[in-house]
């Protein structure tokens, strides 16, 4: 084999493996609060726990609420932005951030809002900051 070809193959293999490694690292999995507590950044899907208090604090400029994850555990979530306008209507939430103690600090939040006609459109996720 020609040395150039070998060099080329090494370059391709090197590039691909580095790319795939990095890709794998930058992907996380949708998980629960309990699992998130053991990791750094996590995506936790769930629903708003409307039995507990929630609201935007004008003093700390944070929005706090309780969310029930898919395992059914309810945890306090702190979101450092205004309460999304459609928060009450969202039927699914995904909070992205990290767990500290018993509180989840979300940097980003996605919301899935139901549409007017359930038959027509299953609804889609929007970034909480976009609504």
């Amino acid at each position, binding site marked *: 084999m020609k040395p150039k070809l070998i060099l080329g193959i090494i370059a391709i293999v090197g590039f691909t493996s580095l790319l795939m490694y990095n890709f794998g690292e*930058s992907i996380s999995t949708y998980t629960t609060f309990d699992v998130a507590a053991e990791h750094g950044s996590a995506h936790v899907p769930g629903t708003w726990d409307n039995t507990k208090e929630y609201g935007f604090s004008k003093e700390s400029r944070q929005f706090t609420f309780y969310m029930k994850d898919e395992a059914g555990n309810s945890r306090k979530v702190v979101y450092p932005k*205004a309460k999304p306008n459609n928060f009450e209507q969202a039927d699914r939430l995904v909070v992205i951030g990290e767990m500290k103690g018993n509180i989840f600090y979300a940097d980003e939040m996605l919301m899935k809002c139901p549409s007017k006609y359930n038959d*027509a459109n299953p609804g889609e996720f929007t970034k909480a900051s976009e609504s």
Partner: protein
Amino acid sequence: MLGTLGKILISASFLAALLSSLLFFFAAYRDDSTYLKAGNWLFGLKASLLIIASGILVFLIFEHQFQYYYVFNYTSMDLDPKYLWSAFYGGQEGSFMLWIIFSSFFGFGLMKWTRNPYKGPVLFFLALTQVFLLSMVLGWDVGLFKLGASPFRTLAEAMPNAPILQSNPDFIPQDGQGLNDLLKSPWMMIHPPILFVGFSMMTIPFCFAMAALWKQKYNEWVGPALPWTLGANVAMLTAIFLGGYWAYVTLSFGGFWAWDPVENASLVPWLFGTAGIHTMIIQRKSSIAQKSSILFAILAYMAVVYETFLTRSGVLSDSSVHSFVDLGLYNQLLAFMLVISGVGLGMFFWRYKELPSPKKESKILSREFMTFAGAIFLLLLGLVIILGTSSPIIGTLFAERPTPPEISFYNDWSMPIVMIMALLTVIGQFLFWKKHDAESLASALINPLLVTSVLTITSVIFGDVRNLYYMVYLFTGFFAVVGNGWIVIRLAKQKPMLIGGALTHVGFGVLLIGILASSAYNSPLLDAETKNFNAAVERGEVKDEQGFTVSQKVNILQFNLNEPLILNDEYVVTYVGYSLEDQNRPGQQTYKLKFEPLDGGAPFYLNPEVYPMLSSSTADNIQWAVDPDVKTGWLSDIYLYVSGSSYVDQRNKQIERRKKQEMQNVAAPDTAASEEEDNIPEQQTIEFGIGQTVEVGGFKIRFVNYTQADSLSLPSNTTIGVRAEVELMHPASGQIHTLEPLFAVYTDEGKSYIYSPPVSIPKYGLSFQFTKINPQENNIELTILGLQEEYEEEWIVVTAEKKPFISVVWAGTFLLMIGFSVSIFRHWGRERKKNA
């Protein structure tokens, strides 16, 4: 009736496309021009039938025929006529039709201009794509599965399970759901057509490449394919730009690019097409790189189809902010993608052995090598983006339920790639126009390098750049601008028609600088207090109630009405109120923020909006959308949106209260009556005399005077009948409403009754009753229903950002467009001469 006709027309169009592709196949196979002629006619018939069908759809939309699902789902009575047009391609089905129509027009062009032996096979492959696209809008029920989704479906066909349609199959709604409010933008009107022009044009190099493989003529095809590829490129770039600009001014993610799958999917075909342009240019010049030109032409179209699959099959619905809903086309789209990839790559590898290989390898310092390297890096960038975008599929290798990759994945990989590309553009352009060895190249580049260094150092100093990586990046960007600018100036003096390529590369450099400057130096506008707080967070000094260290900075501001804040020591900003819209979008609030520059510049206003999404809101479920406002400047933009307000807060609370009440009433209908008293909305009475003003619940109410009551409005046997002229002022919006509630006393069978009908103002949810006159105190009593018990001050929460050099991003994009367009003229002009 018309719907059935439409379905028949589409079916006939599909059959015509199928037949024409067969005829083109035989024309290509047997080199027979009679087949070709018949194929042309059928292709024309296909186009005409589909255009008539589209005309019917447009007619149904304009006639508001809501029994058709498409019309119902994307339009409404109150929709502006210009958006009725865009509703035609607002849904999947219509957008497929638009795509086919554009492809048909380009097909006519190909019939006229394509030379043999490519003509037959080119038209065959084009017709084949038409067959696939038309199958998406067929709506045939083929026993086991449905073939396509017809735009002429009736409601009953589209939603067989809807209760109202089960009880009454002939139900026709009074009004449609309306176009998504976010799409009601002039930018979104022209974005899809331009994108589909791009998609249609990108089909053509694919057809030529396949024709070349079929006819084993590997060189001549690039001549005619190149202008089409360039055209596709300009169209797609324009569409991407429009999409980015729309996202910037209507969505609130605060930028022109968010690495959203839909955005990525539009970028990849463009990158592959651009790679193809590079190899086609060296193939034309030096008769090498036949393999890669063919491969890129195939890949670019594959990427178009892959994008179509990703955005329309519903696989991205969890990860993308804006993708289409699955119409049940998943399998068909998958088949389309597999056939295009299979046929494309299959033909390529089948002919691979006999594809010409370069006799000798190119030197590294040659225009061939450099241009080729540019194409390879474009390919790499495209592959990285495809990988990231395909996370719902490929990500399953790494995680059970994969999330999209972090944004940093895209940034970390694309930055070094574009930096290398920036360097290559200059070296490539210098070598393109003159042969150089290492030494002569170095000496030719000394002056551009000097200028680049001066520019980089200047901007590092003035821009306070501390990050070494950014410095290198800036250097490469400036190098691309200066080096290619050098070539542009030199060429413009001699052969101005040839500047296209170099100008494009200048645009690329400008774009790189703009991207860095606008994103890395994007900063929130904050007041001193918030800044101090953030500084304390950075030092780790802030603890929350639980005793944890707060790590999240605050980037939002709260304004109370008429309480100015000083932002960034640059502006005094005051929230001066808002106005409510009753007409076009009832419930829309337009906020007014006054910016007074501290350096004495002229004050200006920003008017962000918050509105209920009409297409997806009901009385019990208002979905609010924000519309930012952008103050555009040469050096920096101010970007601002209202993310929360007392108005929206109260409206939501009202809805929650009403829902709770309804729930209680439903849950316990017997007790509902007894509880009703508790549930009576807050009632307040005020007493005031003529000329007096009372402040209550955030409103100012003034009793102006008594006015005469018209006898027609009074009951019979009235003894007293008088109206009170009352002014209701809403301080935040400055709006004044004049009301004239009636107070009357009438007798019936010897007894006196009071008649005081309520006057309601739905906008504020208030109603007024003139309930008493107190002659002794010389005042009157008003009873007001619906006032907030706990009245809050008017406040808004605002996200404001300063975005420097966004204009540079746009400038870079425009230069790219201009450069590509110049190249189209040059290459098209040459092809025309050949045809003549």
